């Protein structure tokens, strides 16, 4: 059985991930968003490594390494280069005001706790807390994608969402490594595709503001 300490630490790391998600929601500059995204992935890596430790599942260390290498280092660096080359390192505009977004984020956390805690009443307590917190990370990531207008911050929202999925999967004990690796690769591919698209959009419209796309499609908002 898992000791109280192990439980507390894993709980704390998951909570930290939610906190970092909120931090990301608060940022309104692209560089800051990317930094917070790196931190997000870093916390995830620690959390996964801790799970590997307490579950005695060595393959989860590989998951943690993937999270650290890809998501905490490689992707943020690439994003930063992208932002620099696109020349959009100034302020990003949010659609809804920051305060309201934060309140909505709090509501998301409450909702995911309300949903998950009764459903998972009979499972392992570590997995239980992990899953409910992971759902809030997913919801906040989605909220980020909905409220932001800039394509790069939408990518950041998407990646943080994926981190939430990862957290849930590692907490649930027994996710096969092959699934994890394939998910990591699909994220990488998605990232590459999005990157290429960003440059293509930028080439054509001189901006990565999604409103330009909407205007191009001739639609009213």
């Amino acid at each position, binding site marked *: 059985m898992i000791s109280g300490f192990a439980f507390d630490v894993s709980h704390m790391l998951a909570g930290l991930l939610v906190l970092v998600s909120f931090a990301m929601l608060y940022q309104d500059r692209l560089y800051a968003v990317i930094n917070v995204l790196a931190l997000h992935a870093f916390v995830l890596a620690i959390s996964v490594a801790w799970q590997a430790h307490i579950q005695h599942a060595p393959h989860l260390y590989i998951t943690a390494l993937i999270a650290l290498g890809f998501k905490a280092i490689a992707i943020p660096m690439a994003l930063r280069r992208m932002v620099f080359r696109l020349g959009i390192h100034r302020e990003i505009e949010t*659609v809804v005001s920051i305060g309201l977004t934060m309140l909505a984020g709090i509501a*998301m956390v409450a*909702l*995911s706790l*309300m*949903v998950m805690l*009764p*459903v998972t009443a009979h499972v392992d307590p570590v997995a239980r807390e992990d899953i409910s917190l992971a759902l809030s990370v997913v*919801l906040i990531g*989605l*909220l980020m*994608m*909905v409220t932001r*207008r800039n394509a790069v911050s939408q990518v950041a929202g998407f990646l943080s969402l994926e981190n939430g999925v990862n957290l849930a999967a590692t907490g649930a004990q027994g996710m096969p490594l092959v699934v994890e690796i394939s998910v990591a690769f699909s994220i990488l591919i998605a990232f590459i595709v999005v990157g290429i698209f960003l440059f293509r959009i930028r080439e054509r419209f001189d901006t990565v503001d*999604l*409103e330009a*796309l*909407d205007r191009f*499609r001739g*639609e009213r*908002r």
Partner: protein
Amino acid sequence: MIALPLGCIVLLMTLALVGAVVARTASGGRIVYGGSLAISLALLLIALLSIGGGSSTVTLPLGLPWIGARFQLDPLAAFFLVVVGLGSAGASYYALGYGRHEPEPQRVLPFYPAFLAGLTLVVVAADAFSFLFAWELMSLASWALVMSHDREPGNANAGFVYIVMASFSGLALLLCFGLLAGATGDFSFAAMQAAHPSPGIAALALVLALIGAGSKAGVVPLHAWLPLAHPAAPSHVSALMSGVMTKVAVYGFIRIVFDLLGAPTWWGGVIVLAVGGITAVLGVLYALMEHDLKRLLAYHTVENIGIIFIGLGLALAFGANLLPAAAALALTAALFHVFNHSVFKSLLFFGSGAVLTATGERDMDHLGGLIHRMPKTAFAFLIGCIAISALPPLNGFVSEWLTFQAILLHPDLPQWGLKLAIPADGALLALSAALAAACFVKAFGVTFLGRARTRVAADAREVDGYSTNAMFVFAALCLLAGIFPGAVIDLLAPVTQALTGAHMPKQLDVAWLSIVPVETARSSYNGLLVLVFVTISASLGVLAIHRFASHALRRAPAWDCGFPDPRPQTQYTAGSFAQPIRRVYGAVVFRAHDTVTMPPPGATAPASIEKHIADPIWDALYAPIAAAVWWMSQALNHLQFLTIRRYLGFVFAALVILLLALALWQ
């Protein structure tokens, strides 16, 4: 035994591929139709040999990996295989001649063998997956054939209505099988037979089977595609769709309701009886209003499907009350009518195809006098008309007479619902038979008798030998099945034995080829005797007329034998023939009325008469549904033009709402 029909199906699918290759060559039609003819005859032979034997099953590793594909040849499947084999052999032989006039053979030849394969596959399928696959193959192949002349006005619309109705029927059957498979999820027919669904599930499955198979068979109010699709398809395909495909749909209904559903219920019988009676009468009333030959035949298919469903409803009612002998009689009547209708409806569609080839016209009001130009076609068509009008000594009479014999057994039933419903159905059946006779007097009289109304009708020529031979063979089958009904009834004995637990007494043992459905004291029928009587009395009549009238010399008086006006337009038309019936029934059912516009005195404008006929089912059922779908798609149309963020927002909102519902619900 099951391996042989499966081999035939493989051959047919191969032939479909060959058809795609050779379609543009000169001998493509001969290869495809000749091959189809050979395979259909083989199927017919296999079916006839295996109808008395037991059932043989096979499981092939095809289709979904964990289900496999099961096939079965039991007496019921064998009987319907007889219908399929006979109908497709006839249509293929007919098409050897008719198909030469096809302007675009590459749009018919690849799909024709595929359609035959679909028809065969439905009959031998023994699990829900194979059945539905075959059902859809049948629908899609026939849809492609309906669309083969899509540039003619109305045909694209016909194809659209047909594919919508076909998808709807597939959906209903899918739900039905889903219910029957139940929680175990075993889709094989054997497992469904073994399971005993609860009464609620059984009722729902019965209704879904009636909707699913019925919309393919043409049960009112789901018949809307028949009068559209049958005229659109080439005539040999119309013959197959009307004569065989609707029967395969009836097979689906029998398989589900009599075989898979378990013990029948009496109220299920009431539902089927009501649907059958309404279908029979409305089908023939629609047909009477029609003056397009193929549409008229399509509506008669609706009527005959109604008659078949009356028989099936009776079998359910008797079976539910543990009267197996009566149930076997009713089921025999229904299956006999299935066979008969497939024969004479194929014959009639062949005839209408011959008329179409010779004149290019389907509108009866542009025809007339064809008996002089196309005597062979006219003779065969007349036999078909007599058969479908249920006149002795032909086959249509026997099956309807057997249905009436079953109806006359209704006092044995305890439920008052059935005691009231069955005589009412008997009255509807009698009415529809009489109206059908009137309708075919109109169809034959206006098309083949009198004088030609147009130049094309006057210039018509008899069609090729393949077409006339096909018609003669089917006409001979009508006569043979009418004179020797005992042979058919005995052939059906294993089928009814398997489905109702009883069969009719052996008829070939009865002296002088009579048939005795229940007992000699109640009723018996002898087709041969009627044939002899009809032949002798008609010969005597003809002799007497010629003796006393024809040879008596007369100078033609000025009165002109009712033809004072030499123009053919003054003849009786299809519309004028149907007018009394339109007045009696149409005023209520179709809100039919005539408007006469008389110009004021002195004006030079011509007077006109217009007849207005509304289609109550289309107006009350299909039009509102179409309007609702149109309105909804208009309302949802602007969802196509949202921003990316709104789409994301929709996903997010949907997720949050679902989670909220989950949180509040628990």
